[in-house]
């Protein structure tokens, strides 16, 4: 019974891929399923088009910076929220999910106003900063969850053995939070890499990959979009693989939390 259910869910998740991949190697010049013949031409077109490559690099840059910023802000924030003795600070923890609740379009318009004044529109790092707002909740929620189950006596033990608080956290606490941290970094990266709405408002002429894909659909619908999608899925898959490799149990924590 459960097996059947799992099978159905899995098929539901995989089905888009089963359509997208054949289309990406289609010989037809338009989106047709099933494809009439085989060709790598859409991958070639992607690789030979500087517009696509620039967009990809920009997205990787933005997602990387977003991950760094979200982790750099989110991890210390989680310590403050979880460890504080003040009740109102711990209550703030509930607010950490606020950026997820606020409609992205509202956030986009607001940030557009701010960024245009700061002349950040069209800069990949501007997009990265905006994406950090969205990625921060993932980092805070995952890190806090990991931190709450961590035995604080270990930090005390480390301090008693001669470690400063910073060293104790760096050498004792963070290594044990690795599954949570790796999951958080993964989600931060993917949430930025895949984000469209903010990018539409903020990336201007220097498009991120999702924006470029969107424009492609609007203007010239050809199977390049399918090829890009497959490559994007592959990249996320590689990230997932790395997550599994470097954070034993990270995937499980990502899913269960």
């Amino acid at each position, binding site marked *: 019974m459960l097996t059947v259910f799992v099978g159905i869910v899995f098929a539901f998740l995989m089905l888009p891929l089963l359509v997208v991949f054949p289309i990406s190697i289609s010989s037809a010049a338009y989106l047709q399923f099933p494809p009439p013949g085989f060709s790598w031409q859409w991958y070639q077109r992607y690789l030979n088009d500087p517009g696509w490559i620039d967009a990809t690099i920009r997205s990787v840059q933005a997602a990387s910076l977003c991950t760094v910023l979200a982790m750099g802000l989110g991890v210390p924030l989680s310590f403050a929220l979880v460890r504080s003795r003040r009740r109102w600070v711990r209550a703030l923890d509930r607010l950490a999910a606020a950026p997820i609740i606020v409609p992205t379009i509202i956030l986009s318009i607001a940030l557009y106003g701010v960024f245009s004044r700061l002349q950040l529109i069209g800069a990949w790092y501007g997009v990265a900063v905006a994406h950090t707002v969205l990625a921060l909740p993932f980092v805070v929620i995952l890190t806090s969850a990991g931190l709450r189950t961590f035995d604080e*006596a*270990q930090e005390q033990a480390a*301090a*008693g*053995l001669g470690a400063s608080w910073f060293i104790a956290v760096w050498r004792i606490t963070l290594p044990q939070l690795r599954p949570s941290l790796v999951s958080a970094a993964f989600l931060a990266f993917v949430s930025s890499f895949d984000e469209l709405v903010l990018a539409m408002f903020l990336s201007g002429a220097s498009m991120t990959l999702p924006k470029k894909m969107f424009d492609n659909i609007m203007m010239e619908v050809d199977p390049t979009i399918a090829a890009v999608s497959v490559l994007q899925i592959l990249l996320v898959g590689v990230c997932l693989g790395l997550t599994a490799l470097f954070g034993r149990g990270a995937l499980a924590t990502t899913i269960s939390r």
Partner: protein
Amino acid sequence: MRLSVQGIVKRFGATTALGGVDLDLAEGEFLTILGPSGSGKTTLLKVVAGFEAPDAGRVRLGEEDVTEVSPRQRDVGMVFQNYALFPHLTVAQNVAFPLEMRRRPKPEIAKRVTEALALVELGALSGRLPRQLSGGQQQRVALARAVVFGPRLLLLDEPFGALDRKLREGLQLEVRRLQRRLGLTTLFITHDQEEALVMSDRIAVMNHGRLDQVGAPAEVYARPATRFVADFLGESNLLEGEARGDAVAVPGFGPVPVACPPGPATLLLRPEALRLDAKAAGLDCRATGRVVETIFLGLSAKLRIRVEGGPEVLARVPLRPSTPPPAGEGATVALGFAAEDVHVVPRG
């Protein structure tokens, strides 16, 4: 090194965890703080370790006042209740940690880790992770880590709590031998009175954030300073009576010839001091009673006896193969004790 604790007060909100604690440990002494859970003993340990700041009072190590010194600069080794081993580090890395924090050169670290692990007989397991060890082995790793850097003081917070009885007894003696060999001043915390009696040079009995009595195990056992100590340490019969000058009248037993100021008095009579039947003949104080319950304990038997016209008392009689079996339930027995086996519990 000498430890001196003076007038320590610690409050958490409205509750007073420590209400003015004074304690002195001589160099190399093993002192146990014995008390029920919630008596404040762990709080006292945390104050000594530096994890809690006292609201009043001073902590001195040797000549140095360390009250304001942070835990990492106190040079105090501590074994936590759940050991607090670092699960992601191997046994050797755990033990090396305090030396790395002190920036010792690598060869010295390697040498001292090897020595410390040899001391607790765990040299062969240095590459294992804590979760691959048994509870007793983890406990010894924690001990090695606490002593490897030559601490000025060793603190042990109920380190045997999670271990089974047999293992616990072995480790108690092992810890004691190690402590003697290293000459480490040691503050040990437990709620297990037997453990306290086995291990300590002196015992400090703690109750409601205060020390009721500090003394050698035999002294605290034989001459408890308060009713609480008498009741908490070992099994006891606390006989309530009325003192009149040179004797205390105890219902059922009659006058017990001990010196005690007039008024209501409490006498401590250990179960093993109570004699039965033939052995009761000729003793100062005698009574008859009916056996309510007999419990066989191997080396001895424990009898609950309702004294005629008096309280219910507990007697412990030694068992040898040659002795007849103890009286069964419902039997009537003669019982008695010598006046010198009785201790008058001070009123306070």
